[in-house]
Structure formats: C-alpha cells, structure tokens
C-alpha cells in the first residue's frame, strides 16, 4: 500500500517529463499508473471480502509515535478502488481535454498528487497520517481549482475552497488530537473498538463537533456547501474527479470511518440526519435553478453528499447498505456526467443547457455515455442508480425514528434529482439543435468519450447484475463501517414493496419536473431559493473575508501606528504592568532598613546627579541639556571614584568627555528642542516614567537589604595575582577571567565605528519604486 501511494506521488513528480516526451500520449501513459494501482487493489478484494483486514506499518516518526501506517478494510478498499479506477479514466480524459494547454505538465503534477493524497487518506491508519493526506487534498485541490489562474473567478473559487476546507481541517485536527488523547492510541484500527470509551468521555461532544466541522466543510454540507459549486471554475477533469471520487468524499469517508467510534448517539443521529437531510433537499432543488451543466451537476453532488451524510446519521444495516451502494452509484454517474459536460463544452463552446440540443448525431459516443450515466442519476431501472435509490427508501422505511419524515425528504429530493438527471443526461442530445455554437460540434477524441462510456456501462452492468459487487465489495465496505458483518444482497426487483411505490411516485413527479423544467427554473420560488442558498452563503463568506481584512487593518493601525513614541510608551507601560504584576504577585515588600552612615558630600553628590537629570528633562535649551548631562555623568564618575573604582571613574570620565564632544559636533547641525507636548501628554508620560523608576527603586532597595554572596569576587581577587599575574583585579577580570567579554566589547566598538562610517560616508541610494517628484525632492535634500 505504501508503494501504491508513493508510486503515485512519484508519477506526479515525473509527469512533466512524460508530457515533454509525448504530449499526445501523456494521458494514456500516465493513466497506466493509477490503472496498475487499481489492479493491485482489485486483487485484494477476495481476501477483504472474506472479512480480512490488512495493516501495514513503516516506522516514520517513532519519537512522535507516528508510523506510516495503512489499514485496508472493506471501506478503504471501496474508496481506493474508486480513487484509482475513476482516476485512471480522468487522467486519460485530461490528456485529451488539456492537450494543447501549455501547463499540462504542471496539471498532471497536481492531479496525480491529488490522487495520491486521496488514496493515502482513505488508506491511512494513523490519525496524523490521515490528517496529512486530508490537508494535502485541500492544498492540491486549491492548485487544481485555480488552474485557470489568470481568471479572477478561478482564484476566488480556489481561495474559497482552500479557506473553507483548510479551516475545517484545522478543526478536525483539534478533534483528532482530542480523540488521540481520549483513546490513548493514534491508530484508527485500534480506535474502532473503543466507541463506548469515547462516547462516555466528557470530551465526546467536543470531539464530535470538531470532527463534524472537518467533515462537513470537506463534504460541502450546509452551510459550507458554497465552495463546491464555485470550485467548478477549475478544469472539467478536476471537477469530475473532485465530485465523483475524491475530496468531497473525504468528509463522508471520515464520518464513515469514525462512525463505529462516534456514531450511534442521539447527537450523532440528530446532527447528521438534520444537516444531511437539509443539505440534500435544498441542493437537489437548487440544481434545477441553473442552466450551466457543471453547476447543475455540482448541486446534485451536494445533494448526494447530504444523502450520504444523512444515511450515516441514520445508521444501521439498511442505511449503511444504502450509503455504500449510493457511494458507488454516485461515483460512477457523476464522473461520467462531468466528463460528458466537459466534452460538450470542449466541442461546442457552451455548457448552457438551454443552448444545447440535438447533439446525438454529432457526438454519438459521448451521448451513449451521457445517457447511461444520466439515467443512472435519475434512478431509472435497470441502471445501478435505481438500486441505490431503492436502498435509500428502504433505509428510510427501516429507520428507528422519523422514518416517514426521512422518506418524504428523500422522495422530494429524488424528484428533483430525476429532473436534473434527465436535463443533464438527455437534453443536450435530443431535440433540435439550438442557437449557433461557437464551433461546429463533432465527436470528441476517444480519450474523452471513453470515460463516460466505461462508467455508463458499469452503471448498467451493476444494475442488471448487482452480484458483481454486492457480496464482495459493498458488503466488505458495510462491514468496515458497522464493524459487524451482515449479508448484503442487492437486486433490481424487490417485489411490490413500499420502496417501489415511493420510486414510482418519484418517477412520476420527476418526469413532470423535467417536462416543466424551464418553467420551474424561472419561477419566483426558485429564484428565492437560488438567492438564499445558492448565492448568499458564498457572499457572506466573501463579505466575511472583507470584514476580517477591515478588522485586521483596524487592529494593526491601532498598535502599529508608525509613531515611535507610542511604541516606547507601550513598552514602558507593559514594563509597569508586567513587572508591577510580578511584584504584586509574589514579593514581600517592607520598608527597607537604612544602615550605615552617609557622608554629607555623598548625599550632595547624589542630589546633584538627580538634579542634573531633572534639568536635562525640563530644559528647552539643547546646550543646557548637554551641560546638565555632563554634570550628571561626571557625578557618576565621582561616585565610582569614592567607592573604590578608579578604573571605572577614569573610563567614565573619558567616555563622558568623548560623548560630550560628539554631541556638540552633531548638535550644532540640528535644530533646537522646540515645543513641548500638551500638559496631558507630559503628565501621562511622566507618570509612566516615574512608575518604572519607582519599580526599579523598590526592587533595588529590597535586594540591597540582602547580603551579597561574594564567593565569585573573592575567587577572582584571590587568584588575580597568584594565577593571572596582575595586581589590578578589575583589569585582570577584563583581560583574563572574562576576556571573552572584552573580545565581544571591542568587536562592538569596531562595528560601531564601521556603522558610523557607513552612515556618514556611504552615498545615499534612491529606493526603488518612488514617484518621480518624490525622487526629485529626495535628490535635493540629499547632501
């Protein structure tokens, strides 16, 4: 399994090469890769059908407890087959569809990565491995949806998909982390039997909500459904693949995978049933509102996703049977129909159903595939779609509660689906040619009609002879979801059951809808529906992004307002808050004891220093300020001298003088200190500054009460002469004990000198991107 996934990624990496070698045959060549993987999985079928499961684990991140582990049971096998099987047809199809596109190579890289990600997702056993592939599908689908990147519409659609599914993914990550925390394992296969533990845990509700957020966004459930119809801005092969077998199925797959763990509770049934049911009903009818083939198909996908979600919510043998059956049904017809839509678009230049008609002669093969898949979508016997629908009705009828409600919703939705199926599958081909196509329609190349045809034939074959898959694949998948084995038997003819009655009603109403489609479409009710559920959610989302940007701007200009003084003010305020908080939190402050004598000249010196600082603060004259500064500096030097630090005093004296000279040199070129701030600002800043100073004084006075541990100093003084041959301990510390400090210090000096040199001597450079006037002005002020 590992090699299957890696192989596809490898194929992705190599695909530009293949395209470069042979553009025409690239689709066929690259199609062999998923085909091979499909065969590989198909060969696993007998064993899996017997109830075996395969687990493969390769050490990957042992210190994170995350192996690259895969788990193959019926559920993952079903999806793996869909991913690779339909994937093969899509790859072939894309070769024809995008043959002349200059970025075909990049397209294949993205498409095959997408396939690999989806395959990895359905096979993953470790939850983090699962999540990685889950997010990878978001990323690759982002690139694919935005493939026609020069159109803003495509970019907006891609962004929508990325943010919605990526955001859901993050919620899912939270859920998975909690799940891992609760179960103590990171492997799905071990979680499957821990449903009871999880469901009785206080985190259950949080896990459920987060997982649902991930699944609903990915599987386009209301109210997150809007990204999916928008995503049709991508190339048709992408839409076909995305809708039929990948991406959107990831959410449903996730719910199916976790249903033994999370399912069966009232909240599970209620949430999935209501959200799924509502999504199904809403989107089925919404599909009738549109005339674009791809858009109609997109909404019917949402409808099916709703249905699948609802069935998972209902649970139980019948519902899960219906769910796995419908998954296959849908994958087959939706893939085919999208490809057909692409072919029609490709050959006629329009996807508008109203402008299409009478293509039966021009495009016979395409029509064959389209009709077969379209009728399957409409659920007409003997196609597989009919069985799927029957099973749905059976499930509704067998539901423990709200059975009739479920049936009603299902029938109502399916009525619309019948209409939509016929509109899409039949309408473009029958009747008369309408309008003038931008190009003369003729049959698409074989690579492009092969897919719909194969899928149509399969739909027919499974419908007529469901035993092809029911006992093996579907039953195994059902077992995978339910974690218990039931005999699964499908048949076209069930006898005169209530389900059949419902089907007949559905047909009758469905045909009526088809007949009256144009009227229904234009009706006010549909317009309202279209606005409310088709446009508003997407618009709300875009508006949300706008609001987010505005909000971000507001908060950014609040803090990062470009005013240097404000920055410092904020920093000093934080100092007061944080350090003051720290003091308040723990310190035991008392009045400091005042020990020792203070000579009068010492006190006077201290007073002088403070006074000089006050003068420096208050004065408006720059030279007075400098003078005060120097007095203060020399005062500090005197303190050093008084308290046994002649080296310090000497240096301070020298530095103070040097600073004074530098200041004078520079200041004579600068304007004076004019203007003060308003009194309010002065008081505010003064309060903050005094607060900071007070905090320091408090901390210092607390510390000086404690005797100092002088062992380090004593060692230094003791070894200064005996070991380092120097009488001046301070100097020995500088050049020997802490010589590396001094090394850093002279490096600082060197760099400072180089910096001054750069500042003063390096010619001004004009920054890029200046307006011409501004540049001229710059030149004037430049020296």
């Amino acid at each position, binding site marked *: 399994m590992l090699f299957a996934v890696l192989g596809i990624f490898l194929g992705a990496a190599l695909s530009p090469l293949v395209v470069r070698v042979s553009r025409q045959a690239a689709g066929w060549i690259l199609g062999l890769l998923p085909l091979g993987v499909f065969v590989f999985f198909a060969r696993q079928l007998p064993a899996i059908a017997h109830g075996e499961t395969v687990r493969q684990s390769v050490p990957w991140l042992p210190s994170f407890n995350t192996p690259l582990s895969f788990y193959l049971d019926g559920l993952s096998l079903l999806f793996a087959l869909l991913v690779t099987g339909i994937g093969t047809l899509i790859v072939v199809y894309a070769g024809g569809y995008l043959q002349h596109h200059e970025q075909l190579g990049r397209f294949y890289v993205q498409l095959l990565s997408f396939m690999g990600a989806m395959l990895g997702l359905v096979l993953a056993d470790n939850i983090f491995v699962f999540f990685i592939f889950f997010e990878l599908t978001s990323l690759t689908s982002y690139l694919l949806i935005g493939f026609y990147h020069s159109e803003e519409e495509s970019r907006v659609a891609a962004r929508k998909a990325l943010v919605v599914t990526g955001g859901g993914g993050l919620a899912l990550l939270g859920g998975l982390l909690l799940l891992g925390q609760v179960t103590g394992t990171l492997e799905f296969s071990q979680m499957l039997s821990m449903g009871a533990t999880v469901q009785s845990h206080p985190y259950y509700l949080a896990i459920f909500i987060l997982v649902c957020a991930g699944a609903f966004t990915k599987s386009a459930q209301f109210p997150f459904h809007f990204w999916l119809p928008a995503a049709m801005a991508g190339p048709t092969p992408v839409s076909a693949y995305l809708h039929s077998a990948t991406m959107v199925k990831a959410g449903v797959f996730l719910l199916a995978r976790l249903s033994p763990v999370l399912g069966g509770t009232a909240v599970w049934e209620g949430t999935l049933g209501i959200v799924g049911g509502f999504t199904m009903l809403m989107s089925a009818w919404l599909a009738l509102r549109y005339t674009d083939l791809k858009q109609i198909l997109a909404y019917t996908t949402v409808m099916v996703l709703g249905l699948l979600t609802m069935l998972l919510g209902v649970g139980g043998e019948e519902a899960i049977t219906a769910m796995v059956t419908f998954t296959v049904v849908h994958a087959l017809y939706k893939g085919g129909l999208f490809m057909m839509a692409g072919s029609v678009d490709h050959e006629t230049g329009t996807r508008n159903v109203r402008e299409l008609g009478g293509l039966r002669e021009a495009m016979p093969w395409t029509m064959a595939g389209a009709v077969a898949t379209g009728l399957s979508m409409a659920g007409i016997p003997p196609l597989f779609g009919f069985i799927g629908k029957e099973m749905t009705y059976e499930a509704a009828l067998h539901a423990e509660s709200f059975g009739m409600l479920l049936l009603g919703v299902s029938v109502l939705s399916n009525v619309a689906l019948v209409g939509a199926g016929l509109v899409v599958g039949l309408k473009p081909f029958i009747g008369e040619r309408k309008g003038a196509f931008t190009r003369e329609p003729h049959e698409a190349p074989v690579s492009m009609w092969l897919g719909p045809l194969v899928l149509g034939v399969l739909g027919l074959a499974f419908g007529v002879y469901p035993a092809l898959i029911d006992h093996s694949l579907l039953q195994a998948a059902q077992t995978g979801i339910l974690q218990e084995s039931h005999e699964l038997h499908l048949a076209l003819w069930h006898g005169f059951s209530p389900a059949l009655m419902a089907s007949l009603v559905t047909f009758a109403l469905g045909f009526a809808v088809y007949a009256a489609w144009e009227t229904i479409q234009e009706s006010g009710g549909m317009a309202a529906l279209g606005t409310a559920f088709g446009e508003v959610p997407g618009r709300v989302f875009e508006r949300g992004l706008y609001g987010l940007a505005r909000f971000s701007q507001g908060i950014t200009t609040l803090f990062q307002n470009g005013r240097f003084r404000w920055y410092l003010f904020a920093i000093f305020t934080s100092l007061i808050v944080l350090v003051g908080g720290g003091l308040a939190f723990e310190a035991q402050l008392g009045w400091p004891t005042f020990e020792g004598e203070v000579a009068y000249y010492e006190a006077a010196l201290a007073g002088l220093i403070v006074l000089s600082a006050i003068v420096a603060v208050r004065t408006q004259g720059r030279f007075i300020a400098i003078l005060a500064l120097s007095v203060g500096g020399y005062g500090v030097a005197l303190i050093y001298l008084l308290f046994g630090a002649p080296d310090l005093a000497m*240096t301070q004296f020298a530095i103070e003088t040097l600073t004074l000279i530098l200041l004078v040199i520079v200041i004579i070129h600068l304007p004076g200190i004019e203007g003060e701030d308003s009194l309010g600002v002065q008081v505010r800043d003064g309060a903050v500054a005094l607060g900071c100073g007070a905090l320091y004084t408090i901390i210092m006075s607390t510390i000086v009460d404690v005797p100092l541990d002088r062992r380090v100093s004593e060692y230094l003084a003791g070894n200064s002469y005996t070991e380092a041959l120097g009488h001046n301990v301070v100097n020995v510390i500088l050049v020997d004990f802490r010589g590396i400090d001094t090394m850093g210090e002279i490096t600082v*000096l060197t760099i400072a000198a180089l910096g001054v040199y750069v500042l003063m001597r390096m010619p001004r450079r004009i920054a890029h991107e200046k307006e011409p006037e501004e540049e001229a002005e710059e030149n004037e002020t430049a020296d």
Partner: protein
Amino acid sequence: MIYSLILRVAVRLLVPLLLLFAMFMMLRGHNLPGGGFVGGLVAASAFVLYALAAGVTRAREVLYVDPQTLLGLGLACAYGAGLLALALGKPFLTGLWLHPHLPLIGDFHLGSALLFDLGVMLVVVGTVLLMVFSVEDRLPGLVEE
C-alpha cells in the same frame, strides 16, 4: 584660530608625549588603574588634537594606516591572544606568560594578556579615529577651505 602658531607648536610637542603616556597607561593597566581602553583613548585624543591643529589630511598622513586597518589589527591581536593558547593545546584565552629578565626594568612578565590589551588599545584608537574622520567635514574648521 585653530591654526594659531602656538597651538601647532604645542601639539608638535604634545602628541609624542601623549602617545608615550598612552603606552604607559596600557602597560601599567595590568597592575594599576589604566589599561588598554584608557590608553587607547589617550592615544586617539593625541591624533584628534593633531587633526585639530594640522588638519585631517595631515593627521591621516601621520597616522600612516587607515583607521579600519587599525581596527582589523586590533581585533587580530585580541583574537590572536586567545587563539595562541588554543594553538598550544590549552583552553581558549588561557593566559600565557614569559618571564624574561630585562636589564633595566628587572623582572618582567610578558603575557598574552598584554597582547590582548594591545589589541583593545588599537581597536579603541581605530574606533575613535574612524568616527572622527567620518564626521570630519561636520567639524567646523577641520577641513581646509
């Protein structure tokens, strides 16, 4: 006023004295207050004085090397003093000492610390001079019209 004759003559005498004093400060630093830093400042001030008296161009000529070279050499001395120990297989910055008996001065301790201090001094001289030379044209009267 800066080019007054008296100042020029005074500076002629003062500069060598100051340089000598600087060396003295550096050398005695290990035992008495002083050291490379203060020594460097004194030496630098000698050159600054000279520049004030004779002009920056002259001062640069007398200095002979670029201040940047002084910086480089100073760093080389200081780093070298540390690396010397490494080369001899001792930990970085370990003090190394020679004890030659010099005829006039008597017992003398010649150590890597001295080389280190010399490096500090060179860097300080280089720093101050590079800064001063960089801002030279902002100094009134420094650059000859």
